[in-house]
């Protein structure tokens, strides 16, 4: 194992070379162990796709979407926790710029879709599936808890899900914490509904300034944030650029194919590329069903299970009538289409990590890390429960929904992340 890795030069190692060779060369084809496992995992994923097709077309579709999301998250290491955190911790906006690119792509796509769904927004109708959610203190507290929780645990919900696929055991602990936090939110939902959510205004920008106005305003706000970020970075000191892709200079077909494969499967993607692809996938998912988001589904597991035991929160007032990632009471069995989306994300990330040689079971040595992951997870779960979404549902899919709640959540997410930075700097 050791000898094998020493004989390799970085970035040119890939066994994908061999794959390229297999198309035109007669040399003996060898695959590294992690790539063999990655291809095996891909075969298993295809088998699950076929089984899911048997269960119903929607399940297969969501499995495929989940895999695509997980793969892109892993390849671009798209991490909302670091996007917000690094602005404060490092004065560095690389990941936040990627998020802004994704928001811009999704805003254009969502804008077109919603203008077809609701041609006359001034009449007061809302697009049925878009994440336009009631405003109130629950969004503020939810954003703060989520922002602090994701920094303390080292990843938001989507970040934890893709790191589960990369073999980070602490992320599995975070995931458990998130399920517990969502259940806790379930127990307090009816109180929040009574005092805040039921009367909260659902402000959808096109209702006030039309579709075009709302899209232009949202895009302008994204550009302003981008410029602010550049100014903030310029005061932070020098930044070493990401490692460059080490392209081979072979002009043959196999050489070129090998470069392409390494660019996609081995070398990490720039955050902006990841953001653009995720934004595009989000538009496709909205076209097929509804915007990307999954904390509603996660709540269905923990609330549904405890309800089944007779210990759960019971009925959730008004929740069934709200879109997005609002808490769900469960029922109808575990195998539903969103179940396939969540585990598809884990599997897509696992395949991406194996093919890139980045999979490893990672166990933190300090016991504090497990407490941090669990505690941060519970805070995120509770925050996502009352704010009706995580960094995806209440933010990455809400701002493109041209909904005011997306911006309110984003502001307090940033404040929460700042609080989280203060906390982790005090935990060694």
């Amino acid at each position, binding site marked *: *194992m*050791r000898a094998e*890795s*020493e004989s*390799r030069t*970085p*970035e040119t*190692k890939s066994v994908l070379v061999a794959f390229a060779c297999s198309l035109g060369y007669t040399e003996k084809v060898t695959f*590294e162990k*992690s790539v063999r496992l990655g291809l095996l995992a891909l075969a298993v994923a295809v088998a699950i796709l076929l089984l899911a097709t048997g269960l119903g077309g929607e399940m297969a579709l969501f499995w495929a979407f989940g895999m695509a999301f997980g793969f892109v998250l892993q390849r671009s*290491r798209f*991490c909302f*926790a*670091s996007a917000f*955190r*690094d602005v404060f*911790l*490092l004065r*560095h906006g*690389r990941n936040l710029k990627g998020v802004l690119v994704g928001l811009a792509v999704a805003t254009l796509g969502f804008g077109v879709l919603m203008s077809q769904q609701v041609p006359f927004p001034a009449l007061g109708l809302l697009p049925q599936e878009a994440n336009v959610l009631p405003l109130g203190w629950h969004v503020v507290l939810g954003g703060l808890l989520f922002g602090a929780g994701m920094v303390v*645990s*080292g*990843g938001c919900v989507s970040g934890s899900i893709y790191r589960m696929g990369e073999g*980070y055991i*602490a992320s599995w602990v975070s995931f458990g914490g998130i399920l517990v936090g969502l259940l806790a939110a379930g127990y307090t939902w009816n109180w929040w509904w009574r005092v805040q959510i039921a009367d909260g205004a659902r402000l959808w920008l096109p209702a006030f300034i039309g579709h075009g106005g709302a899209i232009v305003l949202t895009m302008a706000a994204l550009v302003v944030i981008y410029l602010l970020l550049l100014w903030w970075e310029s005061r932070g*000191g*020098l*930044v*070493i650029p*990401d*490692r460059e892709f080490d392209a081979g200079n072979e002009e043959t077909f196999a050489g070129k194919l090998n470069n392409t494969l390494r660019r996609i499967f081995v070398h*990490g993607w720039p955050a902006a590329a990841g953001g653009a692809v995720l934004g595009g996938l989000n538009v496709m998912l909205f076209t097929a069903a509804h915007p990307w988001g999954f904390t509603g589904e996660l709540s269905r597991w923990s609330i549904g299970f405890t309800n089944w035991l007779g210990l759960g929160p019971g009925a959730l007032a008004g929740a069934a009538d709200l879109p997005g990632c609002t808490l769900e009471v469960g029922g109808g069995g575990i195998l539903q289409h969103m179940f396939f989306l969540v585990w598809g994300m884990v599997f897509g990330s696992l395949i991406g990590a194996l093919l890139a*040689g*980045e*999979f*490893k079971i*990672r*166990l*933190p*040595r300090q016991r504090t*890390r497990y407490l*941090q*992951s669990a505690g941060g997870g519970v805070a995120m779960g509770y925050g996502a429960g009352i704010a009706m979404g995580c960094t995806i549902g209440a933010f990455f899919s809400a701002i493109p929904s041209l909904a005011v709640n997306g911006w309110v959540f984003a502001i307090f997410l940033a404040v929460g992340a700042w609080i989280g930075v203060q906390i*982790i*700097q005090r935990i060694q």
Partner: protein
Amino acid sequence: MSFRQLDVRGEICPYPMMKAVQALKKLTPDDDGLQVITDHAPALDTIPTQAARLGFQTEIEETGTPEWCITIRRAP
């Protein structure tokens, strides 16, 4: 050449970077630099920048799948 060693394998984000910065600040004039062993890929982007801001330059060597050794020495 004497390099301090820092093994942050298994650590969660962003501790590999934070621990590396802490170790760099503790280097004495006798140390030539620091070697960080990590299995956390995002650290390959964050550590070089933080090291540069403290006046160091870095070199990354891939030592396993996935494992890297980041050599950090004082910029001349």
